[in-house]
């Protein structure tokens, strides 16, 4: 079994139900995110478009975070999920340096590394990840990549415009996007000016390492 995720970006409407359900399900502290939805505005009026991009851990088959973790706090589960052991973590933040997708954070409450686990605790008892359940448009498609009859496998077979983030790094992500674009998936393809925008303040956090 190899569990994977696919987001059909043409279905995502940026409602954030997935992000909110993820926070509620996993007790994610206010200033941290396992799953977030980024808005990118493209073009100049009247030719404009807004991209909504849900971003979470890619559960790579060749995960740099698992490789660099000095104590195996980040480890593979038999179903392919890259899981975190909070009690094992020493908080060196090497995983944050290694992850090319910015999917890992240091939890300010536990002081340990944390990230999306595809809701491993729910999968263990036969439930779907919280974000899949909450999505009103079924943009999140989750399932076994090894099962040709699973919805995600069929989706991958039927669509030619399947993309992953940063394929050149050979991390082999098991998180796919359909009907995406470079603007949506490449962080350097859009500007990220700091300051207040239409919705919120876009900013970087101050130095979070050291004490």
């Amino acid at each position: 079994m190899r569990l994977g995720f696919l987001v059909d970006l043409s279905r995502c409407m940026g409602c954030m139900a997935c992000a909110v359900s993820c926070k509620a399900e996993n007790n994610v502290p206010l200033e941290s995110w396992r799953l977030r939805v980024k808005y990118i505005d493209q073009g100049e009026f009247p030719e404009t478009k807004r991209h909504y991009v849900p971003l979470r851990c890619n559960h790579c088959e060749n995960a740099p975070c698992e490789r660099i973790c000095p104590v195996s706090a980040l480890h593979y589960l038999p179903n392919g999920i890259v899981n975190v052991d909070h009690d094992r973590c020493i908080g060196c933040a090497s995983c944050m340096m290694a992850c090319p997708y910015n999917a890992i954070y240091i939890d300010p409450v536990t002081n340990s590394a944390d990230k999306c686990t595809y809701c491993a605790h729910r999968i263990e008892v036969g439930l779907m990840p919280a974000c899949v359940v909450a999505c009103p448009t079924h943009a999140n498609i989750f399932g076994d990549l090894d099962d040709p009859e699973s919805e995600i496998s069929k989706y991958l077979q039927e669509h030619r415009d399947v993309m992953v983030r940063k394929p050149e790094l050979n991390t082999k992500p098991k998180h796919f996007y359909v009907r995406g674009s470079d603007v949506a998936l490449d962080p350097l393809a859009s500007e990220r000016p700091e300051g207040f925008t239409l919705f919120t303040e876009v900013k970087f956090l101050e130095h979070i390492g050291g004490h």
Partner: protein
Amino acid sequence: MLGAEVTFDVALPKVVWGWLVSTNMWAKSISTGAFFIGLYFIKKYPDNDAFFRKWLPLLGLVFIGITLLVTILDLHHEFRFWKIFLFAHFTSAVTIGAWVVSGYVLILLAAFWSWVTGNRKIFDRLVIPGFILAFFSTIYTAGILAQSTAREVWTFPAEMISMLLSATLAGSAAYLIVGLIYGSLNEKIKKELSYILFGSAGLLAAMFIGELVFAKMHSEYAEKVVEIMAFGEVAPWFWGGMFLAFIVPMVLVGIAAEKKKFEYALLGSLSALVGLWLIKHAWLIAPQSLPLS
């Protein structure tokens, strides 16, 4: 369609590895550099090696101690550092580094005991394992940076050579400072130390400039990192480091060696150590200044 702009997003982490990690790399350069350079002079001038038999373990232990202290302070779980030995994950350069440095500390302690007791044979028997452990203690950080897949510029193969040259630069500078303050080095050794510092600074400067030029061809991400380092918010650290670590020492140490005015070498060595910290810090934080997602 024209340009694109992020209009809604959460706050992203920027600098995660900061000055504690820069200090780790800087202090480790001094410690292992003191080992390499000290060993070279002990072997080359066996009749005149008392200075190096004393200062090799002292400099080595003090600065590897600083390295270990800042490493532990940088952990978010300082009191769990022992897990790296109990639950060692050997695909990680962090783990390999922890084990290698532990062995290196043992060698330094033996070298210290050798100096305290005057039993030269203790150290002489540990020269080869000591060299191997000092070598790998120097370069394992390049392994950590290489495994940091997300951070362009850190992942370049030249990083390993850069670490070795940083060690010879820092080691020769440290010996010049100690030797000139205590006045216990003869002119021949001071001159040779000056040339090692001069050569290391020249080669290291060429490597940094080379990486700056060639990194642009690597990827769009690397080009952006170079832009931040050369012209952006990190530029004062980087160019300040280039000036203090390489240009000032080369001029002052060059004058000192040729004109036999070694007080210039003292200033040049101090400048080299300050500059080395600055340039390591710039190299560390520049790739962390870009959004990864």
